[in-house]
């Protein structure tokens, strides 16, 4: 789960990491309540990178100007994202800007601290100037790590690491880390909390703002569901097999519009829920690719048939069923779907039937 900047900065404050004075507003009238003196920095609260360049960060010298900027941001949005909240911050003097982050490094299986003496820019563009320090998870951040970064950033680094661990972050990033009159202040906050660990953080805001409404619904039902930009909806069991099915469509010049991993289920209701989501996703064809292990083929077939009897599905359904109890499943589905014997055949038929 990604936190919005203002949510991340709230967390920073509770970990003793200084942030500029600021308030969040949702409507134009709220400018009147801002106690910070002008000029203000207005920052659109959206979850996209490169927000500054896309017009999501602007300086207002007067209340009227702030109102104009508010209208502009809300109407235009930022990089396709709707702006619902704007953070209004004091403008602080900048002597230096750094980059600082902690994340999990997959290759080394360690935590990684990244520091750069240039901040405020996209980190990929200055990758070669970034200092990387590995932190072993069994012992944590040591003083020798901190001695490798400038004195004035060490306190914040120590606190940010504590936050990173205690809040189960995938990423905790400050870019820029501003030095103003000898004092370090977090100019921005990028925090991604591990979805698997949210159950132990009731104190965190639990909004999945980055998801579409169907994706949200799927998450509530515990179904892995991703919206893509094609028109063939794929239901398979297992993430790898679902991806392989989408790739196979591509080989026959088709394009997947939904990734739906049924997972290991032996529950008719879950199958029906998956179909419900797929029906809402409005695809031209539904393609089922099943390799039953834990998941029994006849259970899935039962779910499909029941759903199709209860609800009118206008689009064709292509099904390739393999594994435990496949014979029963094939018999049950015979009158309802277009059958296929292999992944390739199923992909080909799904593309042809459009």
């Amino acid at each position, binding site marked *: 789960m990604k936190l919005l900047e203002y949510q991340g900065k709230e967390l920073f404050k509770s970990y003793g990491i200084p942030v500029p004075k600021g308030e969040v507003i949702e409507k134009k009238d709220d400018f009147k309540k801002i106690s910070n003196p002008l000029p203000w920095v207005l920052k659109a609260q959206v979850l996209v990178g490169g927000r500054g360049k896309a017009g999501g960060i602007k300086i207002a010298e007067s209340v009227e100007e702030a109102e104009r900027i508010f209208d502009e941001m809300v109407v235009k949005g930022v990089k396709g994202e709707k702006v619902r909240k704007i953070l209004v911050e004091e403008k602080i003097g900048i002597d230096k800007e750094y980059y600082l982050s902690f994340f*999990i490094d*997959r*290759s080394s*299986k*360690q*935590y990684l601290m990244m520091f750069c003496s240039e901040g405020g820019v996209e980190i*990929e563009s200055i990758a070669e100037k970034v200092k990387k320090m590995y932190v*072993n*998870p*069994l012992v944590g951040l040591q003083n020798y790590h901190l001695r490798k970064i400038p004195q004035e950033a060490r306190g914040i680094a120590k606190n940010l690491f504590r936050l990173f*661990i205690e809040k*189960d972050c*995938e990423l905790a990033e400050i870019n820029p880390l501003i030095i103003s009159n000898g004092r370090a202040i977090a100019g921005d906050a990028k925090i991604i909390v*591990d*979805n*698997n*660990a949210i*159950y*132990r953080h009731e104190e965190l805001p639990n909004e999945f703002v980055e998801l579409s409404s169907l994706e949200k619904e799927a998450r509530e039902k515990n179904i*892995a569901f*991703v919206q*893509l*930009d094609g028109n063939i909806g794929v239901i*398979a*069991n*297992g*993430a*790898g*097999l*679902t*991806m*392989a099915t*989408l*790739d*196979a*469509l*591509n*080989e026959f010049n088709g*394009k*997947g519009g939904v*990734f739906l*991993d049924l997972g*290991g289920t032996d529950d008719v209701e879950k199958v029906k829920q998956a179909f419900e989501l797929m029906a809402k996703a409005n695809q031209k064809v539904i393609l089922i690719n099943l*390799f*039953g*292990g*834990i998941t029994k083929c006849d259970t899935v077939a039962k779910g499909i048939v029941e759903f199709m009897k209860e609800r009118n599905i206008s689009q064709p359904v292509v099904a390739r069923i*393999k*594994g*435990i109890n496949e014979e029963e499943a094939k018999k049950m589905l015979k009158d309802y779907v277009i059958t296929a014997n*292999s*992944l*390739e055949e199923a992909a080909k038929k799904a593309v042809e039937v459009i």
Partner: protein
Amino acid sequence: MAIWADEKIRLLVQGITGHQGKFHTKAMREFGTKIVAGVTPGKGGTNIEGVQVYESVEDAMEMRPNASIIFVPAPYACDAVIEALDNDIKLVVVITENIPFHDAIKFVNYAKYKEATLIGPNCPGIVSPGKTKIGIFPNHIFKGGNVGVASRSGTLTYEIVNELSMAGIGQSTCVGLGGDPVTGTNFIDALDAFERDEETEAIVLVGEIGGTAEEEAAEFIEKKISKPVYAYIAGRTAPEGKRMGHAGAIISAGKGTANSKIEAFKKAGVKVARFPSEIAEMIKNDKKIW
């Protein structure tokens, strides 16, 4: 021979009284796995499928298990893994999915410190056909033989192994490495073990988008592997920034794409299949050569 798991395995099942634990204890026994004990705190003294359930791993050690499989729910899985490692179990297979990353990174590093082999988390386990199965793979798809399989994806492995078996190509060991960003064993560990395993004559790698494990494997193959390697990569059509089911299957900042993995493998002389089923065809055609 086989890698990591053979007929000498005496298995402990942690979380044996749960739905998955029960079901797969039975399935593993049917496969021929020697299961010597189970553990579920609070349920010690009971019995599942004829297997004695203990309160703790320490108590279960009287049955001399040398491997453990974890079916413990995610919030308690880290504790269970560390309990196994602290009792000097040298092979731990973690099936549980949705384990918090900070827990996984902790027990993965602890396993390394304890010089244990840890497979997973979020994996289907390990199978050496004819010898043992520590995992949740369907029993009937395997056939004993000389091809080693290492995979980051569960069902895709079933698909590929099934095609291999139907084509008459048996497997030495199939290991599911797991779909999470941080896992205990990775492709390099599996490649190294397969290279040294006398029985294994060819190796199949099943990869997917996300991370750089395949690129690192490709480099390792170029330098250290003499046996033929075949690969399939899932997620060629996945968009950037979307997590494709597995926690680890995500393309971020342009890194971890299927193309970069395919290119790396091709450069290392690995044959890369377009469809999962192509792997079996490729091996069948090449079998006369190796």
